[in-house]
């Protein structure tokens, strides 16, 4: 009994410690994003700008350019980390992240059509991306429905829908002028390069709705893990809960995609990394923080440390890919379910 209690309190302590370290990392990377760039500003100047003082030079570069970029990076990191973990937990499969299901492609394809054919910008692209992402997710759910939704079927149908949407994206890329296509490709790679203050409010407001919803649903998700029958006996309607979870998770992916394009593999990586840091606990908060760390760090690397500037999505993609293959290989060998 005492051993059990001691173990539990040790786990709680570890959980608080890890969460605090992750939060500190987010803040450090956030400040580093403000400091680093073509021109490096000192921490006092940066803090001055945040406090609202007028610092010559820094007020524009940091206040107008780097601050919204850092905020958006943090927010999409949180959104993608949450969404990925919701998907992975709901489908009980680390590979069932929105990156691999076709979900993100719905937003991308619609946004590319809007950018390429209709010259849409900013808020229009965001709205189109969110609506299309939802529509694709509902289509995916409907097509996977056959006396309930099975994880395996959802994954496979997601892959099929993704293949069609990729074909659409590639087709659009051939139909527009090369400079527009290059612009579209930059967006498609997930880029924070054009982040401005105007992009912040829609993203922030959407997250104010979606993050609490995710937190509420996460409790029911735990019950769902026990199996559909048990969950029903405990008063959680499995299909309805799953549909709601899907809507929230897709909403998170879609608003993040609308803000910065599809940033590869953040949704996929956050949950498993948080799971390694904190085995056997609820993962939403740590996963959200891990997501923010990943996006901020990848943006710093892509923007400052390489021979040319890469969009954030290329960096996360290059980091995520080997991990993904390793994960598949490992979960197969240990007999993990796939």
């Amino acid at each position, binding site marked *: 009994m005492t051993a059990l209690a001691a173990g539990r309190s040790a786990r709680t302590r570890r959980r608080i410690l890890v969460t605090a370290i992750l939060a500190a990392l987010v803040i450090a990377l956030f400040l580093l994003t403000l400091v680093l760039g073509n021109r490096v500003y000192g921490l006092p100047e940066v803090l001055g700008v945040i406090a609202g003082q007028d610092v010559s030079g820094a007020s524009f570069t940091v206040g107008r350019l780097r601050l919204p970029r850092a905020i958006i990076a943090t927010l999409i990191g949180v959104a993608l980390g949450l969404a990925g973990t919701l998907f992975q937990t709901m489908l009980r499969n680390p*590979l069932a992240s929105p*990156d*691999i299901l076709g979900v993100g492609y719905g937003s991308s394809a619609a946004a590319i059509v809007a950018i390429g054919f209709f010259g849409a910008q900013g808020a229009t692209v965001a709205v189109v991306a969110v609506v299309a992402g939802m529509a694709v997710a509902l289509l995916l759910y409907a*097509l996977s429905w*056959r006396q309930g939704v*099975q994880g*395996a*079927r959802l*994954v*496979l*149908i997601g*892959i*099929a*829908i*993704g*293949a*069609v949407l*990729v*074909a*659409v994206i*590639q*087709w659009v*890329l*051939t139909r527009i002028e*090369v400079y527009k*296509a*290059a612009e579209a*490709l*930059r967006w*498609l*790679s997930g880029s924070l390069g054009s982040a401005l203050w105007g992009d912040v409010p829609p993203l922030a407001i959407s997250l104010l709705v979606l993050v609490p919803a995710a937190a509420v649903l996460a409790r029911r998700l735990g019950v769902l893990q026990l199996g559909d029958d048990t969950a029903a006996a405990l008063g959680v309607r499995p299909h309805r809960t799953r549909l709601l979870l899907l809507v929230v998770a897709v909403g998170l992916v879609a608003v993040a995609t609308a803000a910065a394009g599809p940033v*590869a*593999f953040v949704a996929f990586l956050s949950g498993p990394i948080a799971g390694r840091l904190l085995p056997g606990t609820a993962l939403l908060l740590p996963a959200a923080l891990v997501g923010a760390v990943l996006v901020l760090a990848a943006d710093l690397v892509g923007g400052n440390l390489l021979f*040319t500037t*890469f*969009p954030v*999505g*290329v960096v996360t*993609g*290059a980091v*995520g*890919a*080997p991990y*993904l*293959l390793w994960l*598949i*290989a490992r979960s*197969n*060998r240990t*007999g993990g379910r*796939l």
Partner: protein
Amino acid sequence: MIGSTSEAPAGPRGVRPALRRRRLLLGFAIGVGGLALAVVLSLVLGSRIVSWTEVLGGVFSPDPDSFAQQAVATRVPRTVLALLVGAALGLGGAVMQGITRNPLADPGLLGVNAGASLAVVLGIAVLGIDATGEYVWFALVGAATAAVLVYTVGSIGRAGATPLKLAIAGAATSAALASLVSAVLLVRTDVFNMFRFWQVGGVGGADFAALTPVLPFLGAGAILALLSARGLDVLALGDDVARGLGGRVGPSRILAAAGAVLLTAGAVSVAGPIAFVGLVVPHAARAFTGPAHHWLLPYSAMLGALLLVAADVVGRVISRPSDIPVGIMTAVLGAPFFIWLIRRAKVREL
């Protein structure tokens, strides 16, 4: 190999082998007739409306004089390309499904196309290649590497290469390779401009000069694939039974896989990644022929050619005067079929 006494597997529901054989031959002849019709339509239909005499002039006269005849003349290599690529993808898909005993195997879904894409992009960007004859080597290496990688990753573990594991490994590999591709393309707009047209999967800009270097690959792949028909029949029984029957599992699998990779890489290098043909066609063929590969493989080649030529014609007609690349058409036609296939199967079997 199985003893030579075993005849072609007896047809289902007691149809006599001879009768069944005649039926299958007749079906094949009808299919070839349909293919011929599709080829004629492919020469006749297009953005420009032409008369029959102009079609004949375009096909047969050595130097076409009118616009219409020239329009037809450009349709000839395009049609030939669609025929060959379709047959190669159909055949390659059937072999792949046989080797992996996996109803969802398809070069696009298993990451083979993505591997070829990355290799071609690197070839264009780093070594400055710019001709199809050179693309093919890169596509071949990339496709083979990706195929081996995906199959290895997907088959680790006790259950072996289940369809779901392979499909996820393929999708994951495709996603990973695609982000590497875009890392290169973002830095090099010139490469991107060449690559985006190759990537979409089309037969539109075809000419015979681009087609010729690929022919040896397609030919060798087709021969290997057709020779491995018996080996695939044995493999279908499962590795243990196959070994018990005296079949050499390793060599026949490698031989067949080499054929499939040659076919798909050859097709991909000249026409770009075209998805779902290799998936859909063998299933349609199996509905006619049953599981025996010595019928299934020729049927798959024939139906693949028919599908691609027809898809190309439809893509040209519905969006006149421009055309929709055939890779888009096959994705739009193939995905619903794929989804139907998954919905029909019991999840436990996946």
